[in-house]
């Protein structure tokens, strides 16, 4: 049985009526390695340029070429950019999946397809638009390799016509996408036009879907979370990067390398003000980061689940020796190798308690590309301020998909290098003791090699305040208690949640990361369809700040919505809440590898409420 988008999605068929403007999803089903990415991004961008909110989600296989892949573009006049389950407009290019792709469309959908696939007769409740791609591409180029590639631009042309997408915007988007490659632009433009003209001449509009200009994307940009995080790292003043390739994290470091190369050469010497090392594995990657941080660099690594597991021992070393480290976890689906090209929020619990012994780490929880950017900076500042590893828990959906955003803002605060011992401080505190809690916040002062301050000996074994080896019970317990105190300080420093307390709402929802976008939509659905108001708290960090508990207190029931099986964030919350709060907590989980959608949340929440009432 072949893997198809429809099988991978849970279909909810629905009947269609009248004209549908700026509120539908286009899905291009093709084969990976066939070069459809340009065509898809051009389509996405053209709609965006017309002022219509869009989002693009790529569902690709964990191989390089030849397997089915689906790209979904959602236009949403209301600005919903989470996943939507139903495909309204299909472009069926892949013979292997075409049948199932068509069969799982909702009633009233439309499908452009490659004519030889003969899909027309599969259903009578779907509008079909056959397109003879091979015939149309023939006059455009003689090069067989190029034909295979440029073929995709034809469906862009067809769609432009059928969906009323402005051809001028298509061309602008294409030029944006291809840069200065004039030959390629010319070729693609002819394919685009060929598609458009074919549709104009041959395909009467029979479906209700159209794009009309709006002004809802003005001043906005389109980018991936990993690119935003990379920019954030550069602006955070990163000086040391060590990484090991892994999907879906690689593009973070690869973008970062590009930016650093361009913008972080010393203007006088032309030399790099950073080092990037492709490590031999994730153990070494984090080891290098810890070594670099220990001598005072702003150091980071980026990885995904399997890398997180491998980093466990070093994470504990960082915690106990109190060396800063920034670790991006672009989460994918586990357990084990799992589904490397699918999305999840599945490493929350293991990252929070990564390593044996009593170890705990702060987590930052970006849910937008702009937070990928800002939290990258937060992470460096926090790691150095707290002198501990800090994890930024992004995911594949956020990291690798293309999102709308307002332009990233230049940082307002200077870089925070944390508590470094200097002459003045030394005078004030009298004596340097690496692990002494001078200020009552659990955070000690540190020195680095070459700074002229007293040296100390860092060790993962037991130590006293002055960093000397110690097996004494009192030294040990004091140190562990101070580390716990430091974690309480972290609670006061991490980003606070975003809260929308709705007056009169008895039900609250807590979510984090990309789950946010489904909540936004679900709240509107519940309000519109059921008159149900929900208060909402979006977590932005672990440890939880007092606002979280306060929020729970103000609700009668609170659902924690997340994208994993084991209710991992809920587990962390349960460890910290009061009995009264605990009693209010419910769980909605989504774990199929695809981003959570608003409708699923709505359905699940109503089901839970139903049960609640039945009780």
């Amino acid at each position, binding site marked *: 049985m072949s893997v198809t988008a429809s099988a991978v999605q849970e279909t909810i068929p629905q009947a269609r009526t009248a004209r549908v403007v700026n509120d539908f999803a286009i899905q291009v089903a093709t084969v990976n390695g066939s070069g459809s990415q340009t065509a898809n991004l051009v389509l996405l961008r053209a709609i965006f340029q017309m002022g219509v909110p869009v989002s693009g989600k790529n569902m690709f296989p964990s191989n390089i070429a030849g397997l089915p892949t689906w790209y979904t573009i959602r236009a949403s006049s209301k600005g919903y950019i989470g996943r939507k389950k139903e495909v309204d407009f299909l472009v069926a290019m892949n013979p292997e999946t075409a049948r199932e792709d068509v069969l799982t469309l909702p009633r009233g959908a439309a499908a452009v397809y490659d004519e030889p696939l003969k899909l027309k007769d599969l259903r009578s409740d779907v509008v079909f638009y056959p397109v003879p791609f091979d015939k149309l591409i023939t006059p455009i180029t003689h090069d067989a390799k190029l034909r295979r590639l440029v073929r995709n631009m034809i469906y862009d042309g067809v769609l432009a016509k059928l969906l009323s997408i402005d051809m001028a915007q298509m061309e602008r988007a294409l030029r944006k996408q291809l840069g200065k490659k004039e030959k390629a632009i010319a070729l693609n433009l002819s394919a685009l036009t060929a598609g458009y003209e074919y549709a104009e001449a041959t395909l009467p509009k029979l479906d209700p879907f159209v794009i009309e200009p709006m002004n809802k994307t003005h001043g906005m*940009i*389109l980018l991936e979370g990993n*690119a935003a995080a990379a*920019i954030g790292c*550069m*602006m955070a*003043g*990163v*000086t*040391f990067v060590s990484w090991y390739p892994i999907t879906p994290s690689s593009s973070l470091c690869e973008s970062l390398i590009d*930016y650093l190369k361009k*913008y*972080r050469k*010393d203007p006088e*010497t032309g*030399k*790099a*003000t*950073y*080092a990037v*090392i492709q*490590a*031999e*594995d994730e*153990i*070494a*990657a*984090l*080891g*290098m980061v*810890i*070594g*670099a941080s*220990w*001598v*005072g*660099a*702003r*150091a980071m690594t980026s990885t995904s689940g399997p890398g997180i597991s491998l980093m466990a*021992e*070093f994470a504990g*070393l960082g915690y106990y020796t109190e060396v800063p480290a920034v670790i991006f976890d672009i989460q994918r689906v586990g357990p084990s190798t799992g589904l490397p090209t699918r999305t999840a929020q599945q490493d929350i619990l293991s990252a929070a308690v990564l390593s044996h012994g009593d170890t705990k780490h702060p987590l930052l929880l970006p849910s937008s590309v702009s937070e990928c950017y800002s939290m990258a900076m937060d992470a460096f500042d926090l790691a150095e301020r707290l002198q501990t590893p800090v994890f930024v828990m992004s995911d594949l959906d956020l990291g690798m998909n293309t999102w709308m955003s307002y*332009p*990233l803002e230049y*940082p307002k605060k200077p*870089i925070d290098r944390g508590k470094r011992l200097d002459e003045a401080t030394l005078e004030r505190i009298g004596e340097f003791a690496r692990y002494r809690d001078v200020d009552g916040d659990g955070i000690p002062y540190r*020195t*680095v*090699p*070459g700074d002229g301050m*007293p*040296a*100390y*000996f*860092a*060790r*993962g*074994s037991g130590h006293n305040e002055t960093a*000397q*080896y110690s097996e004494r019970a009192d030294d040990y317990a004091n140190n562990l208690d101070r580390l716990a105190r430091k974690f309480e300080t972290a609670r006061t420093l991490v980003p606070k949640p975003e809260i929308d307390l709705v007056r009169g709402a008895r039900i609250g929802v807590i979510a984090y990361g990309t789950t946010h976008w489904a909540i936004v939509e679900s709240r509107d659905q519940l309000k519109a369809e059921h008159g149900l108001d929900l208060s909402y708290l979006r977590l932005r960090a672990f440890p939880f700040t007092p606002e979280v508990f306060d929020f729970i207190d103000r609700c009668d029931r609170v659902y924690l919505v997340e994208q994993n099986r084991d209710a991992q964030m809920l587990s962390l919350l349960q460890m910290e809440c009061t009995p009264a709060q605990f009693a209010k907590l419910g769980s909605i989980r989504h774990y199929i590898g695809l981003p959570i959608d608003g409708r699923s949340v709505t359905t699940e929440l109503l089901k839970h409420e139903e049960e609640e009432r039945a009780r």
Partner: protein
Amino acid sequence: MSTDTTVQPPAPGKKLNRIGLEPLAYRGGKTTLCAGCGHNAITERIIESFFELGIDPTQVIKLSGIGCSSKAPAYFLSSAHGFNSVHGRMPSVATGAVVANRTMIAVGVSGDGDTGAIGIGQFVHLMRRNLPIVYIIEDNGCYGLTKGQFSPTADLGSTLKTGVVNDLPPIDACALAIELGASFVARSFSGDPKQLKAILKAAISHRGTAMIDVISPCVTFNDHEGSTKSYSYVKDHDEPLADVSFVPFFEQVTAEYDPGATIAVTLHNGSKIVLRKMAEDYQPTDKMSALRLLHETMSRGEYATGILYIEPDKQDFIDLLGITDEPLATLPEAKTRPGKAVLDEIMDTFQ
């Protein structure tokens, strides 16, 4: 074993070295290793080498993994920053530290278990990168700290006190290091203070990876007859390859040494190292000769000691990275956070 009787510049009678420090400034905490442990002798030689070279200890970083040997950095250069990391992973921590502050002199201390077993992967990659570091394996053929199990450098056929016989061939760290790209590879013996100190001083002055496998008997668990890494065995089988003498550029004294068959190698800092050739045609600058020597001596159950291989001009990892001369670790915000124009330029690409 704690003093060196050879006359060395600066003379041992002198209290202060060229930067005006006394030997005490190079010492560390009191050792907690067994009395007579080879590792303690190596610690002494490290102390002497840094003292005699007149290196500012605050410009040194000391790194190690886990093991008896890996405790050693706590026992020398107490005014240098040190990092006793996790088992077998010192190479990565050292790589980060050295790259992030290129001005520091790095000394890594490891054990044969720490390097040869759990750490062999990181060892391979550090050697390949030719990271500037003095990488010392305190090699006793066993896991001292966990009470004497065989390590991967235990010799075929050697026996534990419990009677267990090792039936796997040893890994030769020197041969591997040469094969992988280390630019300075030597072997010595903790019981040979003169040679060890000379090699250490040469290694400290070398730029690139200086890997020294120091046979360092574990008196508690691996100093019995079945073991080939005991004092008695090594004393009998140690085949000195070259008598090594190091001449620091600030005080050139060569007169003390036999001017016989020698070859001179110039190190990156201008200092010279003089090797007395033992084998007729031995070239420490030729990889194949070094490997052949190692194979031949090993197959005779002997240890070739001395500087086995040296490639003084090889680019080290820092060169390859093309980083600023100023340490990355201390770059000011002005150099690490690009201005608003850069962000604007980037934002334009996403419009």
